[in-house]
């Protein structure tokens, strides 16, 4: 679920870079998926999560996953705001439970479980821009240890008016009236959005498999001058060097103050075709969940769609894909994906 609409085969061919400070995800009709008795209570985040989760399950041909893990930075922000406003506006009188119940951070994971009657492991990570990656790491460890055969993992965040306007007020989001894309950005702050991206990870390669998730690394704080060493260490741990990376998918988001983290990485990965994706889906805490979708598509097709290319380098056969993301210099994540 993205500002470009739902995930579909023609996604990258039809995508248009966004250039507004705040862009909503295009919503499909949920009626076929969610009964009216339930949908009436659901915020966009819950609906988007359910939709994307079902899409991933359908692609994988799995009806009920063994575990469900969701990453979200702000959780069910819309309902939190709604409940808080009623408290403040009515002096703690006449409050109703629905928005409080739905404000809990684990609502999306819970509603997916409820809908699928999935009694397995159910976790929600809420750590800013590594919320989703925490979930990927957890899922990978459980599959490696043989605890589960498959895990549904996703990231979801929704726009809530007040919260986003506050982020705009302090310059995290570009001001209204500034219409820059990532490529044309001359200012600090970013274009924000919302969305949901889900994956089914499985211990077995199947006919539907896109790619292999090899490793996940999360580090809270690292200096610009240390990032290449961190990446080298990560690659070395996986028996690779910086020359082995064929595709690098970077979290470049157009924030002049922090995109500099990605510059040395581009130099370091000498052979990599450098891709970016936030120009299509915008920035939000769990937006980096879209990066593995890019990796998966590139792995499956053997090449990147032109709209994803940041820096034109000679393309070579795709084997190793490195994903690197950070937000405002914190919460760095590295994912290694391999074709399979």
């Amino acid at each position, binding site marked *: 679920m993205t500002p470009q609409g739902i995930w579909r085969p023609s996604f990258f061919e039809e995508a248009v870079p966004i250039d507004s400070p705040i862009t909503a995800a295009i919503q499909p009709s949920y009626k076929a998926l969610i009964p009216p008795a339930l949908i009436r209570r659901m915020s966009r985040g819950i609906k988007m999560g359910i939709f994307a989760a079902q899409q991933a399950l359908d692609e994988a041909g799995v009806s009920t996953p063994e575990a469900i893990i969701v990453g979200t930075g702000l959780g069910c922000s819309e309902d939190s705001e709604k409940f808080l406003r009623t408290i403040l506006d009515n002096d703690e009188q006449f409050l109703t439970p629905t928005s*409080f119940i739905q404000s809990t951070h*684990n609502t999306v994971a819970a509603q997916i*479980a409820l809908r699928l009657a999935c009694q397995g*492991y159910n976790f929600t990570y809420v*750590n*800013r821009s590594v919320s989703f990656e925490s979930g990927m790491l957890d899922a990978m460890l459980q599959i490696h240890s043989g605890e589960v055969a498959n895990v549904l993992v996703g990231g979801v965040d929704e726009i809530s008016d007040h919260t986003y306007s506050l982020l705009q007020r302090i310059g995290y989001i570009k001001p209204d009236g500034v219409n820059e894309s990532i490529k044309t950005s001359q200012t600090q702050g970013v274009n924000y959005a919302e969305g949901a991206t889900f994956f089914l990870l499985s211990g077995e390669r199947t006919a539907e498999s896109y790619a292999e998730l090899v490793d996940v690394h*999360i580090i809270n704080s690292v200096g610009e001058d240390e990032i290449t060493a961190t990446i080298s260490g990560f690659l070395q741990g996986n028996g690779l060097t910086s020359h082995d990376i064929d595709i690098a998918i970077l979290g470049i988001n157009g924030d002049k103050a922090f995109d500099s983290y990605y510059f040395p990485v581009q130099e370091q990965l000498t052979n990599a075709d450098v891709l970016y994706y936030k120009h299509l889906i915008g920035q939000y805490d769990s937006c980096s969940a879209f990066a593995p979708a890019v990796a998966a598509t590139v792995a499956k097709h053997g090449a990147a769609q032109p709209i994803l290319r940041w820096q034109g380098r000679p393309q070579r056969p795709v084997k190793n894909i490195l994903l690197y993301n950070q937000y405002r210099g914190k919460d760095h994540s590295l994912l290694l994906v391999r074709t399979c």
Partner: protein
Amino acid sequence: MNPRVAITGVGIISSIGNSVEANLSALLNKRPGISRVQNFATTQKDSIWVGEVKLTNAELVDMLGLPHSNNFTRTALLGCYAAKQAVQSAGITLPNDYRTGIISSTSVGGMDYTERYFYRYLDDLSVQPYITSHDAGDSSHKIADYLGIKGFVSTISTACSSAANAIMMGARLVQAGRVDRIIVGGTDALSKFTINGFKTLMILSDEFCKPFDNNRKGLNLGEAAAYLVLESEQVVKKEKKQVLAYLSGYGNANDAFHQTASSDNGEGAYLAMRKALEVAGLSPDEIGYINVHGTATPNNDLSEGRALQRAFGDSVPLFSSTKAFTGHTLAAAAAIEAVYSILSIRNEVVFPNLNFDTPMSEINLVPQTELVYRPIKHVLSNSFGFGGNCSTLIFSQA
């Protein structure tokens, strides 16, 4: 079998004490920490009882040695206080060469400040630094920075089972060799948001809560923070560390029954307990004490009671809810109860379930209401949350 995970440090702040020793003393002397709300204004203050930490934010700031101009929420302050204790109790100075991480958990995050400044944020520059303290990850970042942890930092929020899940993921990372040490637990401050939220569900008691009692009317909310230091066996050997207890089992399952209510037969709770026993390689009769979730809501206690009967049959071990001491501290609950479980093993004692008079009419289960001293090898601790989230941890004697 999974490598054992050693617990080498604990830290806690709750309404019954600002240290592990103070908490133990209150538990042993049957001294609950339930009072009226004092730290902030709420129209509910005369109708509810809470487990409130009787320190103001300014006092906590001073105790932590933070600059007066800061953007720490109460959730972060409580978290820093307890996490620092845990690190000290493990005899660790940071930073060091060991790969050290933290997984914290919270349900309200920075809501205590958001509800104070929600509208003022728009045009009052002086309060705007708190805008970025709202999200759930903020307190974890603050604690990590305060302690000097730069590596793995993450946060879990699964409502009232959050800290159990933070402990679980921490154990997983140690077992997989991803970290050498990890600080795990949770923190939650009282807020108008949660007080009113639980009030709308009509599950707040206007009396002292009575877990597992037939006439229980609901829960008392509380605030607290607690953290454990988990270390790998290799680090323990190399550093010749004293091990307080081992985390030997864990399980998480989803009730998949209702967004807030637990199922009648406690399916999720039963599955979580069974998984934890399986991971620990223990049979039910090896559990010496159960620190139950026991919120004292009509729904939880009956559902949990049924799950206990399913998991343990006719011989349910001694069990008690310590929430009549502390209130229900939401995301922190499983962490403070982890500390109590470890204290139970180390002091060979079962803590009493306060305020209990009458057994539930539906099931034949009576909690332990008096202190009882006896050797305890394994403690099972339950924590359940909204969204059907059910978690069980098992702690074992070192």
